[in-house]
C-alpha cells in the first residue's frame, strides 16, 4: 500500500463518516412524535401502520409472508422468508425515512411523520 492509497482510504473514511453523521442528523431532526409506517410491495403501498399502537401485521412478499411488529413507537420485520434474512436482522427502526428493505420479497417499510405538509393529520387506513 503506497502513500496515495492511504490518502485515498482516509478520504473515503472521512466522507463516509461525514455522510453518516449528516444523514443521522437529518432523520432525527425530521422525525415527529406521531409516526406512520408505510409498507410497500413492488412500489405499491399495501399497508399503513399507526406506530402508536403496539401490534403485529402480516403482508405477502414475493417469497412468502413477511411478519411485521410494532412496539414502543418502533417497527421491525420479525420474520420473513429470504436467503439472508437481512431485513429481519436489521432489527428495530424508529426514525422517519430510514427504510427496511426486504429485497428478495420486494417489501419496503418506511416510517413517515403523521402530519403532512399542510399541517393536517394523515389518515391511517
Amino acid at each position, binding site marked *: *500500500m503506497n502513500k*496515495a492509497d492511504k490518502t485515498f*482510504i482516509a478520504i*473515503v473514511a472521512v*466522507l463516509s463518516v461525514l*455522510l453518516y453523521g449528516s444523514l443521522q442528523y437529518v432523520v432525527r431532526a425530521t422525525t415527529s412524535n406521531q409516526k406512520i409506517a408505510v409498507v410497500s410491495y413492488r412500489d405499491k403501498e399495501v399497508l399503513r401502520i399507526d406506530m402508536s399502537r403496539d401490534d403485529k401485521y402480516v403482508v405477502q412478499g414475493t417469497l412468502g409472508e413477511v411478519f411485521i411488529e410494532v412496539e414502543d413507537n418502533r417497527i421491525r420485520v420479525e420474520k420473513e422468508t429470504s436467503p439472508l434474512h437481512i431485513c429481519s436482522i436489521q432489527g428495530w427502526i424508529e426514525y422517519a425515512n430510514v427504510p427496511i428493505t426486504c429485497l428478495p420479497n420486494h417489501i419496503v417499510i418506511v416510517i413517515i411523520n403523521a402530519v403532512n405538509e399542510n399541517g393536517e393529520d394523515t389518515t391511517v387506513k
Partner: protein
Amino acid sequence: MNRRKRVRRMMILTMLLAMSIVFHMLEPSLPLPIPGVKLGLANILGLIALYMFGWREMLSINFGRVLIASLLRGIIFGTGFWLSLSGVALSSLTVIILKKFTPLSAVGLSVASATFHNIGQILAIIVIWSSIMMVYWLPVMIWMSIPTGILTGTLAVAVLKRISKGGSP
C-alpha cells in the same frame, strides 16, 4: 501477437472468468458478521486481468461474470442482476480512470472499486425502488468497502506477484 500467445492469453482470460463466476456464486453463502456485506472476492480476478492484460480485458471479465453468473442463477434481468451490473459498471469505470490518472496501487484501486461498486448498487436501488431514502445505507456500505477492498487488493497483489515469478505474460 502470434497464434501461440493469442491462445495462451485466451486461456488465461477464460480461467479468470471461470474463477470469477465461481467466486461470484459462492460468495453469498460465506458467513460474515454483518448481513448484506460481501468481500467482493470476484473483483480480485478483474484486478488481475487489469494488471496482466489491460482495461478491456478487465471489463470483459467483470461484465462476463455478471452476465453468466446471473444466467446460471436464473436472475438475469431481475433486481439482483441490475444491482450487480450497475455496481460493476461504475466500479470498472472508476478503476480505469484512477489507474490512468492517479498513482494508486492495486490495493487503492481495489478499495475504490469496492466503494464505487456500492455506490453503483445504491444508485440502482434508488432508481428501481424510486426512493432516495436508500441512500441511508450508503455510508455504512462505503465504510465496509475499506476493509473488504484492502483484503481483496492485497490478495490480488499476492497473486500477481506469484504469477510474475512463474513467468506469465
